[in-house]
């Protein structure tokens, strides 16, 4: 929907010049701050501080990368889904994730960073993506658990982003959230069906929940006390709710769902706190989290290699499409080019 080729107010053929720090910039900054304070939206052609732009490019491109890499652990089960129905559902879900990646890359491109650059950063390992996808999907229940817990956590994170101060990102998130509801429900329903099955199937669900629970809690990011960038992101209206508050919301919403499902969440410290009106929970293993973020999780290398291979294997398709388009271009356009 949005492209980076936005140069409203610029004369054709003129490159937008970098604006020097000046009185004019101070004036722009004031207008920007006022807009943020009034809970307004920033749009691609508006002036914005460089740090705001950089933060958004980083966040939105990482978000896009997560959608794309997130197709891999679930894609692993498409050919082995237990029924045609579950296979069709899983294909539809993985297809949605690809679509979400595309919405987000487009939103990031409105900030002036090209898609080639973003992909190059992903493929070189410079850009991060959600750590949760660096864990393997070992049994069919993992597909259900990813829908229920991983997508559940992602939804918690994404709902406040629908009110993000950057217009294209907020609008992309609204679209994503609308589609995400099916993802969580199909996962939970798949687990419900397994829980009504054999003891072996129930054990499979419990094993899957045991492996994913703590990783999902870590998805919300480091505790507020150790999250140095959060405050600035809050000030800019990029982040609306703190990591710890989102994590708490997720836990409070998930415990009753686990009870209905009939699984145990693997945390002996998990219990209702009457005074706080929230669930208390145990310590998250942050060393393990950072170790995975920094490239040493069980599947980091495999995920990245698969991604790079898919991109390289697709080169002939991109070349062929371009060659075809050039061949069929009207004569006049060819001459002008």
């Amino acid at each position, binding site marked *: 929907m949005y492209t980076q080729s936005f140069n409203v107010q610029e004369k054709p053929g003129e490159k937008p010049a970098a604006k020097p720090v000046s009185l004019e910039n101070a004036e722009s900054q004031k207008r920007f701050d006022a807009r943020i304070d009034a809970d307004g939206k920033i*749009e691609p052609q508006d002036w914005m501080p460089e740090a705001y732009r950089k933060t958004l490019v980083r966040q939105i491109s990482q978000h896009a990368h997560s959608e794309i890499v997130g197709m891999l652990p679930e894609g692993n089960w498409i050919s082995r889904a237990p029924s045609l*129905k579950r296979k069709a559902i899983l294909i539809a879900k993985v297809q949605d994730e690809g679509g979400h990646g595309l919405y987000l890359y487009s939103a990031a491109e409105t900030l002036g960073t090209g898609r080639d650059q973003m992909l190059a950063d992903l493929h070189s390992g410079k850009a991060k993506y959600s750590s949760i996808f660096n864990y393997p999907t070992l049994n069919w229940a993992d597909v259900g658990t990813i829908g229920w817990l991983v997508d*559940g956590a992602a939804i918690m994170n994404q709902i406040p982003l629908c009110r993000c101060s950057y217009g294209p990102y907020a*609008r992309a998130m609204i679209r994503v959230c609308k589609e995400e509801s*099916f993802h969580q*429900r*199909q996962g939970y329903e798949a687990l419900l069906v397994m829980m009504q099955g054999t003891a072996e199937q129930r054990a499979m669900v419990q094993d899957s929940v045991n492996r994913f629970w703590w990783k999902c809690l870590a998805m919300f990011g480091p505790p507020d006390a150790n999250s140095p960038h959060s405050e600035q992101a809050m000030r800019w209206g990029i982040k609306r709710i703190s990591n710890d508050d989102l994590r708490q919301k997720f836990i409070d919403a998930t415990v009753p*769902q686990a009870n*209905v499902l009939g699984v145990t969440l693997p945390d002996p410290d998990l219990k209702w706190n009457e005074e706080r009106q929230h669930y208390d929970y145990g310590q998250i293993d942050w060393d393990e989290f950072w170790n995975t973020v920094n490239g040493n999780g069980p599947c980091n290398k495999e995920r990245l290699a698969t991604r790079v291979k898919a991109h390289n294997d697709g080169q002939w398709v991109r070349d062929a499409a371009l060659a075809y388009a050039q061949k069929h271009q009207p004569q006049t356009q060819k001459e002008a080019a």
Partner: protein
Amino acid sequence: MTTTATALKDWPLWEVFVRSKQGLEHKHCGSLHASDAQHALQMARDVYTRRQEGVSIWVVPSKSITASAPEDKDALFEPAADKIYRHPTFYDIPEEVGHM
């Protein structure tokens, strides 16, 4: 033929998109003839936002728009009709789980 008449005849068609409110997307609201992009913006302001209907306008040359053919409608959109599992309502979730 006067210069003005020639110009009018040669003014290309532009599609106009208006953002009605801060934060919302631009929506198509109609088209108009204008000599160039700046001119089209000005005309769009006068034609489509006289009662403060917008906070931002896009104009796009109509000839730049590629549209799907009406006769392709079934081929393009019908395949989604039987994929009801793409909708959250396809899944039965016990009531006590609440909103999901």
